[in-house]
């Protein structure tokens, strides 16, 4: 459960993108090193956590996964609340999922913190022969919109680790360079120098009280 782990930061990261692009498998690959060909559709919200070390810091990533179907967007404001990072996922073999990226981006900026770190992720590189979204197109789009960019394969475990690490690293860079001040992003817990940091005021960790 990890509630009693020591960590310096908690970063909330959301996975967004059309239904069927592989969000849930990216999540399970990163947090449990699992891949499921027949994973269930996500209804509502799923989430998982993993604690990673970034240089000398321990960061707890809380990754939220939601249903991609348009209909569920009505209930996602609670989902974006407090997010400091996002992986906007499309399927490199399905051009339509790439075409909707702009819509997702708007959705994200409408609801999330304006300083949120966003990475555009082209998933399913294992299906390279069926590719319909050229890498360069996506890369250009990402550059123009100030997004990080990577292509991944949750199936083959390619770049999944790197994708999350880069996003978490960039969040940390923003936070520590004071581009983002504390409070503007509620889920970020800027720790005191003591490694075993308590969370932000909204989310008290139990470590000090109930153990």
């Amino acid at each position: 459960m990890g509630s009693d782990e020591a960590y310096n930061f908690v970063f909330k990261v959301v996975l967004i993108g059309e239904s069927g692009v592989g969000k849930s498998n990216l999540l399970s690959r990163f947090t449990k090193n699992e891949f499921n060909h027949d994973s269930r559709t996500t209804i509502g919200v799923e989430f998982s956590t993993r604690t990673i070390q970034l240089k000398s810091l321990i960061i707890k990533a809380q990754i939220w996964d939601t249903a991609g179907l348009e209909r569920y967007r009505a209930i996602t404001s609670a989902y974006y609340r407090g997010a400091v990072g996002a992986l906007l996922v499309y399927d490199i073999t399905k051009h339509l999922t790439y075409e909707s990226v702009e819509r997702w981006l708007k959705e994200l900026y409408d609801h999330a913190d304006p300083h949120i770190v966003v990475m555009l992720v082209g998933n399913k590189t294992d299906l390279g022969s069926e590719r319909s979204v050229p890498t360069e197109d996506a890369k250009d789009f990402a550059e123009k919109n100030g997004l990080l960019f990577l292509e991944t394969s949750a199936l083959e475990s390619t770049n999944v680790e790197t994708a999350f690490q880069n996003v978490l690293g960039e969040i940390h860079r923003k936070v520590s360079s004071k581009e983002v001040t504390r409070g503007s992003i509620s889920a970020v817990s800027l720790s005191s120098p003591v490694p075993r940091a308590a969370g932000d005021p909204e989310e008290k960790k139990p470590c000090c009280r109930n153990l």
Partner: protein
Amino acid sequence: MIKSSVNFASMMSGTLESLSGLGEDGSSIGSDSEINGLAVRRTDKYGFLGGTQYSEGSDKDIRVDVARQRELKWLDMFNNWDKWVSRRFQKVKLRCRKGIPSSLRAKAWQLLSNSKELLDSNPGKFEELEREQGDPKWLDIIEKDLHRQFPFHEMFAARGGHGQQDLYRVLKAYTVYRPEEGYCQAQAPVAAVLLMHMPAEHAFWCLVQICETYLPGYYSAGLEAIQLDGEIFFSLLRRVCPMAYRHLKKFKIDPILYMTEWFMCVFSRTLPWSCVLRVWDMFFCEGVKIVFRVGLVLLKQMLGSVDKLREVQGMYETMERLRNIPPESVREDLLVQEVVSLAVTEALIERECSIQVRKWRESRGELTHQPVRRLHGTRDIHEHKRRASAISSGGSFSFLGSIPPPGPLRASSSLKKMDKEKKRTWKQKTPRSGMRERKGEGLLYSAS
């Protein structure tokens, strides 16, 4: 020639033997399970090959003579169904609470939900819907979802297998039947549960009843009905289990973060399978009240004591607990017993509903989809049917669930008139763009 066929046979049996031990690698299940049409792999008694809803053999079966007695009682009820519902409904309810015999479950669900009547009064309709082309927008999403429903159930494990084919037929037919509603992902597990029990056409009409009579609006664009029920649920929790309520409030855990899947899938992805069936038995009979009660019982169970709360001090810890309810913590009989004894009535839910609708309007403006009065289970449906047929003196109107659809199945003219009058009182003040009013909806608008 002979030799080769022998070889083939031994090879086959070798394959079957190696298949009979459930693979270590759970992910391979499903890709090839249809080759074992002979059911070589061991499933539990509900057809699950593995996964979190697989039942270990520990379930106690009821005694054979008791089971037989129950079957006879149900068969007797089937023979005089309308009388039982109108005159001895308490007994019907009690028997649903005890659990419907599995051999008769499919028929019972169809009678309880009145979907049987829809089926009978619309011969050929399902085939007609199937023949339509359908909107590619929905068909695309449905296709993507086919292999993602109960992947551990023998019926849905095989890609392109008959279970997935039927699922496609049912879900597609619904989008043709209600083009303005389309497809919502939570409908797939619901349809899949129905298909585990009955053929596609029957499952379709049963799904229609669930979507339109039991849980109207749950699967509609905007998901307002589910959000409203989330608020109602939370407020009921305050009465039922203040400790859990305070905990969820303290950690700012919105109801929609945990109850969406519970409610939209009627717990079919949440509970051990024996519990799912018992919950659905009661749900078909008593309606959405059961969904609220099961949710409340679960929260009580997970967050109802100081000890339990100590383990989940934090938003994420709490969410994790609620999203992965340990199967051993939900015992079938105890669950049913608690659900039955919980004092959450239809009237209470309706009252809370009007309060929450008012609050919604105050804080968020007009609802895009006006709340439709849902029917609380068998008796309510029956009562409504009786009233509808009394109004419809022409005799051409057959009760079709909550929303008489456009086209050939439209309500009679006297109903339409009533419909218009009601609509006026519910007229939207600020309709959002893209909104379409459905014909006949006014029929069930709440009068309160």
